[in-house]
Each structure stands twice: as structure tokens, then as C-alpha cells.
């Protein structure tokens, strides 16, 4: 069974550059012979003491022609001799091939009657000249590549949505494979141009379908029986998520600090403490409200900006050596303490 995975940019551009073919293992089961259970048979008493029959000499047919490999011209077109995939045959291949395991010091068996050579798939039908000739032959059905799509970036820019499907080839009465219905859609989140709120909502909607490292949202659909339906369904899912994330519902205003998906320093107690500490340093006793704290401009506080970043990264990225060290450094800078001494 072979499998062709079609990888295409949505909006109708089918790119053959991402076409991959895998040949899967044949589905036949390997039945392992159980060695331990082999029963030993009783010996048979040979009364007549029959001699082993002498094998009759098989007369060789005298009209078998020599290998056609011997008659081949050195400048022949190999593509004519081996036009398609087929099992290795020694009499048609004019190469002194050897294959097979042998004890050390011996030459591997030659090409004649060599099952090892027949087992492995050969690519004698896909020699470089043949590939070239075939490419030339089907060029008449190829359209020109759009000029402006000359780089990966340009393609990503103009065709941000990727659709991945798989095709299967069988040797069976049916040409259908249920796995061919599965459709995967991938899109870079950045290309959706969402604002902060919409992005947050979108991520909450797609859940673990978003990969932070690559910034890709991957939506896979296999619930419908036909590929077309699944394709429509992934389109629908993307559209629905996008528009839903742009909506702002009434209840979204009830979002509290606990519901935040990330640590916003401006809204947290840390800023409040900093501002209060700063004001007290200046001996200004101002009673500020929560909103005022949030809007307070910290640029006048020395080292506050980097302190803010250090705290944010500590909270957002989690505790690790670098964030903690960074935090320690920034706190020292803020409070005017000396640099950490190397003891």
C-alpha cells in the first residue's frame, strides 16, 4: 500500500513540492513460528532398506536462449528495457550485482537465483535520464509558477492557510481508503491579525490546537465520511473561531485578575507596591485609587522599567535560574543596593 500526502495551500494552489509518498509495510501478518513446540516424530522402520532414489538428471532444454542482457547494446536506452517497476530479474539487468549475507571472507552470491535481490524494491525504472524524460513529457500539462511567489516567505504571506490530505493506493477491489477523508488545516496565528482580546479568546477556543513554538494553529477533522465534507468543516471551524474571538460578550467584563491568562504587571499588586514605595520615598502622601495606580507612569522611577520586565518574566515564564537571577539583579538596581558579590 502506498500513501500520498498532499500538502496544499488553500485558495486553490496545489503545490506538488510538498507531495510525499510513503510505501507502507504490507499488511500481511508475519506468523512467527514457534520453535519450542516442534514435535519430534517417531522414526520409521525401513524394512526393505530402500535406497534413496537417485535423482534423475533433468535434461536441459537446448532451445533456451542466453540472457538478453548479453545482447544489449552499450548505448541502449535503459528506459526502454525497464520501463516500469518490477521485480529484479537477472537476465534483463546487465549489471554484475551481488547481494546477500555470507560468512566473512566470501563473496556475496551473484545475481542469478538470488532471492535477496528479488525481495528488495528496486528503482531500476527511475534512473535519472528516465526521470528527466518523464518530467519533460508531462511538462505540457504544467502551468507556470506565479512569478511573485518566489520565496517561502512570499508563499506564506499570500497563502497563509495550509491544507494537508492523504491519498492511498491499494491492491484491492476497492479504491477507497477511510483514512483519505482526514483533513488537516494549519494557519499561523500571527496572520489572523487578532487584537489582544481576540487573540486571548481565540487561544482559549482552540485550546491545545495551538503550538506556541511555531505559532501554528492546527485543526484536524475526520468526523465526516468524505474529504470534501471535512474540508468544509475545517473551514467552518476556523471561520467560526475567528469571528467568535472578535466578539466581546457582556460577561467578559467580569474577568478578574484570577482569570487572566498571563501576568499583567500593571494590574497587579507589584506595581501598587512599587508606586507606593516610590511615593513614600519622595514623602508624598497621595492616596491613589486602583485606576490611578494602573495608569501611573513609571518611567520617572529609575530602573522601574527593567524591574517590571523582570517581574513579568518571572511570573509569566515561571521560576528558573535566569529569571530569578534577573529578578535579584533588578531588585538590587531598584533599591540601590550593591551588585551581588561573588563570594
Amino acid at each position, binding site marked *: 500500500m502506498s500513501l500520498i500526502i498532499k500538502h496544499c495551500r488553500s485558495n*486553490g494552489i496545489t503545490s506538488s513540492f510538498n507531495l510525499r509518498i510513503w510505501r507502507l509495510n504490507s499488511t500481511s501478518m508475519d506468523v512467527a513460528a514457534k520453535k519450542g513446540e516442534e514435535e519430534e516424530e517417531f522414526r520409521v522402520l525401513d524394512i526393505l532398506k530402500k535406497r534413496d532414489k537417485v535423482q534423475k538428471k533433468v535434461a536441459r532444454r537446448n532451445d*533456451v*536462449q542466453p540472457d538478453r542482457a548479453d545482447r544489449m547494446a552499450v548505448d541502449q536506452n535503459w528506459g526502454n528495457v525497464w520501463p516500469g517497476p518490477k521485480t529484479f530479474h537477472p537476465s534483463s539487468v546487465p549489471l554484475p550485482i551481488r547481494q546477500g549475507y555470507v560468512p566473512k571472507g566470501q563473496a556475496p552470491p551473484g545475481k542469478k537465483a538470488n532471492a535477496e535481490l528479488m525481495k528488495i524494491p528496486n528503482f531500476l525504472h527511475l534512473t535519472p535520464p528516465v526521470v528527466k524524460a518523464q518530467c519533460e513529457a508531462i511538462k*505540457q500539462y504544467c502551468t507556470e509558477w506565479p512569478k511573485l511567489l518566489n520565496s517561502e516567505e512570499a508563499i506564506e504571506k499570500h497563502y497563509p492557510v495550509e491544507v494537508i490530505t492523504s491519498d492511498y493506493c491499494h491492491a484491492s477491489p476497492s479504491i477507497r481508503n477511510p483514512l483519505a477523508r482526514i483533513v488537516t488545516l494549519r494557519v499561523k496565528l500571527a496572520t489572523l491579525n487578532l487584537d489582544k482580546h481576540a487573540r486571548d479568546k481565540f487561544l482559549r477556543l482552540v485550546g491545545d490546537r495551538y503550538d506556541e513554538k511555531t505559532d501554528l494553529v492546527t485543526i484536524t477533522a475526520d468526523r465526516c465520511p468524505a474529504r470534501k465534507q471535512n474540508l468544509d468543516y475545517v473551514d467552518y471551524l476556523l471561520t467560526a473561531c475567528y469571528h467568535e474571538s472578535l466578539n466581546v460578550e457582556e460577561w467578559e467584563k467580569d474577568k478578574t485578575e484570577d482569570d487572566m491568562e498571563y501576568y499583567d504587571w500593571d494590574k497587579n499588586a507589584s506595581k501598587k507596591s512599587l508606586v507606593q514605595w516610590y511615593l513614600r520615598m519622595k514623602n508624598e502622601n497621595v492616596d491613589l485609587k486602583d485606576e490611578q495606580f494602573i495608569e501611573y507612569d513609571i518611567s520617572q522611577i529609575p530602573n522601574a522599567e527593567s524591574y517590571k520586565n523582570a517581574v513579568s518574566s518571572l511570573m509569566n515564564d515561571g521560576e528558573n535560574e535566569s529569571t530569578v537571577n534577573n529578578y535579584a539583579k533588578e531588585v538590587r538596581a531598584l533599591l540601590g543596593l550593591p551588585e551581588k558579590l561573588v563570594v
Partner: protein
Amino acid sequence: MYSNIILPKQWSRFTCFCRSLSSIEGQKLPQSSKSSDGISPPPRIPRSPTDILQALAATVGADPTAAHYKYHDDPYLIPLSNFRKRAYALSAEAGRKAAAWIRDEHAEWFTTREWDPPGKMKTPYFNADPIIDAFAPRPIYNDESKVTEEDLKKTIEHALLDDSIKIFQLLGGVEGVTDNNLKLSFLQLLCFYNEKEPDSLEWLEERWFSANTKDRHAATWKLGGLADKIFASLEQKTPEAYCTVIQGMAKHYQAERAYMLCQEAIEHGIPLSTSVFNTLLGCIGFLKEGTALRIETLKQLLAQMEELGLSPNEETLTSCLRSISAWGGGKVLQKMAQQILSEFRQLGIQPGLSAYYYLLCLFCKERGPRIDILSNILTDLENREKLIPKETTDTNFFITAMGICSDHLQDIDMAERLHALLMKDDNYKLVGDAYKESIYYRHFVTVACRHASFERKTQLLDTLVPNVYVPEPSVMEEIIKTLEVAGAGDRLTQAWSQLVIFGIANRTRLVERLLSAMCSCYEFQTNDIKVKIRDAASEILKFGKLTEEDGKNNNNDRRSPQKRLSADAITNIIELCSDVKDKSDPAWDTISEGLQRLKQTEATGVPTKPQVLADLAQKAASMGKLGIAATALQYLAECGFEEASPASVDTLAVILNRPQQEVETMLQQRSDIERALHPSALAVLDAYYMAKTGAPTRDSGSSTSSDSDSESSSDDE
């Protein structure tokens, strides 16, 4: 290599038409394959589902070392003789037939789903998806079947003639079927096939190998058959019905009734089609006797066409020429044909391959004068972009033209031009079937052997033999002759192995021809080729013995007695083998074997070159092979050749190492020389006296080495 010209079904024309439409729609539309804005994909270049496959297939050329791809690519399974080619291909097809038989016989096994519990299945289900009708079991109709007009429609569509007749009868015959259109299409089917089930299109090999089933030119139309009945029962006789029946009758040579019906239709003012007149033109020969009357009728029919306002087409031209070529030869007819051709040319109708075929038949008679119309025909065909087969007789063109190149014109350049035309594009399908192909190559190889340069000949033979064409014995003889003239000893030895492989090594005449060819060009060869020739000669002798033993073992199978090699051939073998310098050479075994055969009169006739044997005796004596020398001389003496006595003297001179005169004087006293001789050389002496007196002087039971040899060999047998 298969002929793709299949025209027995009416609907094939229709599908052909559909295909051409789709190709117009698919391929030829002008369009830009460029993207409009540099970003959006350009419009797809439309293509049919098989276009890519065809483009890929066009990259694969012919491989002269390989057999046709229908055979297994294995030295043991590649057929090398015509008999094997046929047997292997037909055996493979017999397997397919057996499978089809099981499918039809046990149709119920092919409609079950594997995972359905027995008895639970509600509707027939096919595992295959999509269902391919050609692979599904065929419905069987018998007297109990419940049939509808739908079934009849379906069977007519698939051209299943027997089934449709059965359904028609089940439906109640002429009265039962009420739908006039259905009746008409059934009538068309019956008329096209003359109520005879056609050969299935499924069996390609059978069609390819079917021995040339020549169309019977006889009135085969079934009078009062089902077609006639249906036509009579039609209340309203439409033009289509008339056209169908007239064409059917004319096609199957019921000329008079077709002609009558045609005149009747014209009287009633029923419009007729061009193809009606085309078929009528094709069977004028059955209507009238005598050339003058026939020509008159032909002209009448053409005039009638003009009256009715029917424009002639290519088929009209073909059927005119077909009729004319069937009426014999002669200046009148040839002139008539030329007139018709030029008139059609004026109308802008180009003759097709069939028309040219009939022209060749008319002009190039076997014993007639040489008329070179072929070169003009070839120029015309070469200038055409593509040869499109239209009629089944189109396949006769190439074989006939090659036959004319070979027999009538004896022109190799013309043959090469014709062959180049056949090899162009996919014109090879016009070669017809296996029978026609082999005749085509027979003519081609013959003319090449006679008139082509030696390089071209060998190149041609290397590419054609044996995978494309296996030479028949007559062609093989031609080839051997050519090789002899060119003095190609190496190729002559190959010719022997080819004879064995092609299964014609038991043709004595051919083998004798080959041996004499080897002999005549032996002395000009280099030493290693001489060795090869010697080996081949001894092989020939061995092969003859083998086949003889075979014949003895299964005597019952042999229909005719095995022909033996002539004494001449065996002398040739001996001559070839005796050219060795070494005493222990295995060639001496062959020589003694050959001599035994000669002596036991296992060979027909007597040698025409006894000097060979005399020389052999001398040479053998000088090598110390006294037995062989004695046998040769004895044979010569027994046969009464004059050479026997001088040869014996010479041989004795060699044995005794004395001059001839001395030996001759010694021979006067028999006892003297007997004493001087080695016992094994006494046989030479016998031969001498036998040649002198004409009778053996001593008992033949003497213990000479040669006699003991012959005894042991006769024991073996």
C-alpha cells in the same frame, strides 16, 4: 502491437465521436498558462484522465532484445518460435477465460460481502468500489427469466446479440414489443451482425492470432429471418428502418433484394443516406454480370446519388474501388478507377488506406506489367499528418504494399520508405493481426535479403529476429543464401542455433543448404570462426542423431518418417571437421560418426564430392587414424567411385612412408605388402582390392578397428 481497429459495434463510432468532442473541449482551446497577477495560480490546463499516462508511455520506445510485453521476461518463458508465441499468449488468455467462466457460472460468489453473516444480506453488494461492469458477472437469460424492455435496451446497448434475441422472444416477439424505437435499434443490431453473435472484444489474443478469417463473399443474409420479420411488422416504415435493412442486406451480399428495396424507397420518396449507397456500391458484383453492365450500374448508382442530393464521402470512394478491384484487371477497369479517383480528388475527398489497398490490388497484378503507383501513394501518405484507421480493410494496405515492394517492384528503397511509414507514431496498429504481421515481415526480410546492403540486412535481422518476427523456412533459406554470398561465417554458425531455437532444425533441406554454405565460405574465415564452424557442424550431426532417437522412442507420435541428412551434407560435415591439426581433437569423433552413417547407408544418396573422402583418408593416415582412413576408403570402394584406388595407393604410401611407385609395385604382390602393414591398415588394402576387383577379397569379419566401432555403435541402438 495489437490492432486497435475494432469496428464491429455500432456504438463504438458513437463513443469515438464523444471522445473527439471531449478532446476538442479538453485540449485544443487556446489559453494562457500564466498567472494573471503573479500570485494567483494560473488556470489549470485541462486534460483527460489518461493524458498523463499517455505522455509517459510515449517516452518508452521499443527494446529489440525483449519479447513483447505480454510474455514473461525470462529466458525460459520468452517464446522464440511462432508456435510458442501463439501457444504462450493463448494459454494466458485461456486462464482469463477460465476465470470468466467461473465468474459467470458462480455469479453468487461475487456478490457477497465478506463480513456479512450468511442469510442476513439484503441487497446484492459488491466489494469493489467503484463497481466495474466488465468485471461483474453477466446476467443469464433463460425461459424462466422475467424480463422487461429495459433489459432488452441494456443488452442492445452492450451488443449482446444472443441475449437480446432471447429477451425479444420472451417479451412476446414481434407483437410483444410495442416501442417502435426499441424495435428499430434491435433491427439495427440484427442487421449489423446478420443475427450472428460477434466474436467477443474481450479476448485480444484470440483476435490477434485468429487465422486469417477471410470475409466470405457470399450472400449470407438470412432470408425470412428475424430482421426481415421485424421490418415487415413495422407499421410505419421510417427512413431509418429502410436504411438499416438495405445496409444490412447489402453488407451481407443479398444484393438484389437490397437493390429492390432501395428503388422502392426512392419511389415512395423516402430519404436514404449516403452509407446506404456506399454499401450498395460495394455489392454491384453480386447484382450484375459482365464488366460493361457492372460499370453501367456503378455509374447509375452514382448518378442516382446526385439526383437525391447526397454528397459522396470517403467511404463511397472506397466501395467504388473495392467493387472495381473485385471484377478482375484490365485496362478498362484501371482507367475507370483512375477517373473515379481524380473526380473524387476534385471534390476534395482524399482516398484512405483501404482505397489505396484496392488500387494496389487492381494495378499491381502478379503477372502483369510493372506499374509503379506505390511511390505516389507513399508520397501522399507520408505527407499526411496522421493515418487514421477508418475501416477494417485499412489493415490490408501495409501487407499488400510490402508484398508489391518485394515481388512486383523488387525495390528495397520503396520497402524502407513503407517500413518507416509503418513505424511512424502509432501507425504500427495498422499492421493488422499476427498473421498479417508475419507476412509483412516475410516480404520485408525477403526483399531486404535480395537487394539491401549487407550492413542494413544484418542490422534489420538483429532487430527483428526473433522477438518481432520468426523467419519461416523459405525466408531462412533466403537469409542463409545472403550470408553465404557475404561470406559471414560467424553469422552462419548463429543461423544454426537459430534453426534449433525456431524449431525448424529438422528441415533437412535447410540444414543441407546451411552446410554447403558453410563449406563454400569456410576457407576465407579466421581461425576462431573456423573452430566455431567445426563445432556447429558436429552439433548438426549430433542433433540429427538426437532427433532420430527421439523419433524411435515415441514412434507413435510421428506422423511422417524423419527425413535423413543426405550423403552430401554428411560429406560436408566431414570436410569441415577434417581441417584439424591435432590428433586428439574431438572433431575426429564426429568424422568417424559421420563415416559410420555413410557406411550404414543412413544417409540418402551418394556424395557428389568423393574427393573429400579421399583427402580425408590420406590426412587421417598421416595422423595415425588408420581406422578412419580405412572406413573412408572402404566406403568409396563400396560405392564404386573411381577415386577409391588412387586414394588407397596414396594412403598406403603415407602409411608406409614410401613413394607411390614403390607402393604400386608392392601391391602387385599382396602377401608382401600384407606383411609390411600394421594389422589395422589391412582394411585399406581391402578397399584397394575391392576397388580393383569390385568385390571384397577378405571376410568382412576381420577385426579392424573401424568394424569394431561400427559394431559397438550398432549395439547401442
